[in-house]
């Protein structure tokens, strides 16, 4: 039997150290941080969707991002540049849609529908307000396919009143029109490039395909046009060509990407029935309902979502406060390709409205 005697002084020291350790374990209130990084999940109908809020949370101005895809992840938008130039002023909210990024679940593929994504989005906003307070100001930012979700949401009921403003970057609000405009742009610019003897073989293959597919595109044809549109950007010298892979790889460790989850979710979503469903979706006819301030940013050489599509959005919305900017050096990824313009325009837009 060993007896231990502890002096009073020692006891006080132990209590003091224990309190210090406990204080260190206290979680910081996420709503009070100016350089916060706060991850939470929203569970809805078979999916737990990751939401990451980063930046100046205490400032109460939130930018809620709807990523592209279907199946891309919000992770890829969380670049160092955005961290340094937007997150210092605002809280960026990176939401992984169901079956995307770090979102998790079991057999939930049958729930991957457009209406379900809109329902998910409603609940994400409700949770955001619950977590950070009803007094937060939310700006909606969407990219590419996210534009379809955003316009679907904003044109329903009074949903737009949840936001101070909307930023549409390279977004699609009308998939059939999108296909037609992509084809037209591929033909117009393709012929110019052939006349200038630039990438002649590549462009001729694209032109031949476009000439033999004039309209009423099937889902397969639509995907083929999208593939050509992505390639076409690479043939334009004026475009700022960004090597995305090193950027994503470089931030994957610091950003704690679940790389294989991002990959399998992307592969699943890309081949899901959702693509068939959205191939006929259009919101052009209801864009007049949108009255909130809007900023429209498109790349001049975006063949995937051509600038004319942005113009269709811009002219149809009823917002008094609206602005459209076309980046002369961007294709479909303006957020990367003209990051200075993106950051500047977004900041100006928000500062004018807050």
């Amino acid at each position, binding site marked *: 039997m060993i007896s231990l005697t502890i002096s009073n002084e020692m006891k006080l020291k132990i209590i003091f150290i224990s309190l210090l350790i406990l204080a260190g374990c206290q979680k910081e209130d996420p709503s009070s941080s100016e350089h916060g990084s706060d991850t939470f999940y929203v569970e809805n109908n078979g999916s737990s969707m990751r939401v990451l809020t980063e930046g100046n949370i205490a400032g109460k101005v939130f930018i809620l991002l709807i990523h592209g895809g279907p199946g891309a992840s919000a992770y890829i938008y969380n670049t160092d540049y955005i961290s340094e130039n937007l997150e210092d002023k605002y809280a960026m909210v990176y939401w992984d849609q169901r079956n995307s990024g*770090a979102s*998790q*679940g079991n057999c939930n*593929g049958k729930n991957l529908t457009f209406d379900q994504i809109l329902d998910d989005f409603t609940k994400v906003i409700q*949770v955001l307000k619950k977590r950070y307070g009803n007094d937060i100001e939310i700006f909606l930012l969407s990219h590419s396919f996210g534009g379809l979700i955003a316009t679907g949401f904003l044109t329903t009921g009074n949903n737009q009143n949840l936001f101070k403003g909307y930023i549409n970057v390279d977004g699609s609000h009308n998939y059939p029109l999108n296909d037609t405009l992509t084809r037209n742009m591929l033909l117009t610019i393709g012929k110019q490039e052939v006349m200038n003897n630039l990438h002649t073989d590549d462009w001729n293959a694209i032109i031949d395909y476009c000439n033999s597919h004039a309209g009423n595109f099937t889902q397969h044809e639509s995907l083929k046009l999208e593939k050509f549109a992505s390639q076409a950007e690479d043939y334009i010298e004026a475009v700022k060509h960004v090597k995305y892979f090193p950027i994503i790889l470089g931030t994957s460790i610091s950003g704690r990407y679940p790389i294989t989850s991002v990959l399998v979710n992307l592969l699943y979503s890309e081949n899901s029935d959702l693509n068939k469903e959205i191939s006929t979706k259009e919101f052009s006819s209801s864009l007049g309902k949108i009255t909130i301030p809007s900023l429209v940013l498109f790349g001049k050489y975006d063949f995937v979502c051509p600038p004319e599509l942005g113009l269709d959005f811009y002219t149809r919305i009823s917002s008094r406060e609206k602005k459209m900017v076309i980046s002369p050096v961007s294709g479909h990824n303006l957020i990367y390709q003209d990051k200075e313009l993106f950051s500047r325009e977004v900041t100006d837009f928000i500062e004018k409205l807050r």
Partner: protein
Amino acid sequence: MFRTLVILALISVSNICSGQSHSVSIVSGRKPAIKLSYNSSLIYPGVSAGAEYMFKEKEIVKQKRKSKQNCFAREQLITMNLSWYHHSGFHDNIYLTSEWVARKTRKSGYYSEFSAGPGYSRTFLGGTTYRVGEDGSISIKKHAGYNYAVVTTGGGIGYDFSSRNNTPVSVFTKMNLILMYPYNSTIYFRPVLELGVRLNTIIFSEIKHKDDFSDNFK
């Protein structure tokens, strides 16, 4: 990563396939062992603990030129493992697996192995999880996560110190691939690197057998 896995698998499979042996002797015996390992994917920490039980062992002596002999043992084992890793912001995963292991141990003490087996996984999401009711009420779900069926496969190398002296310890490194289903209606996979030690419990219970095994290599 993938290339490393393929190489390890090929090495291990080649070990399973018996070459032409000049002399094969069956050694009966049971060598229960326990293991503890660091169980990591890149920067994400974890731990794995388990027990293994040998159910088959063959000692093989191959006659080489110049009257040299190549002696090694082929063992087949069943293991039970309880593993965990922590991926901040994504999930914590606790998984129980049972694996079949084929191991080739050389006289020098170096060994290589291949394993595969089924299991069960329970994940815990890497953040507070909210549920929104139809009436707009918001609640926090405790211990939110998912159950998955698991298949693991892997290959590794190690060194058994008991080949040189009676130290019942071996060290090993092993690359495993965890497959989880149904993950968002598809299969989630994750490479995991193990660095660990094994302790042969034979030293406590069956020292006699251990001595016999060592003698066979002399």
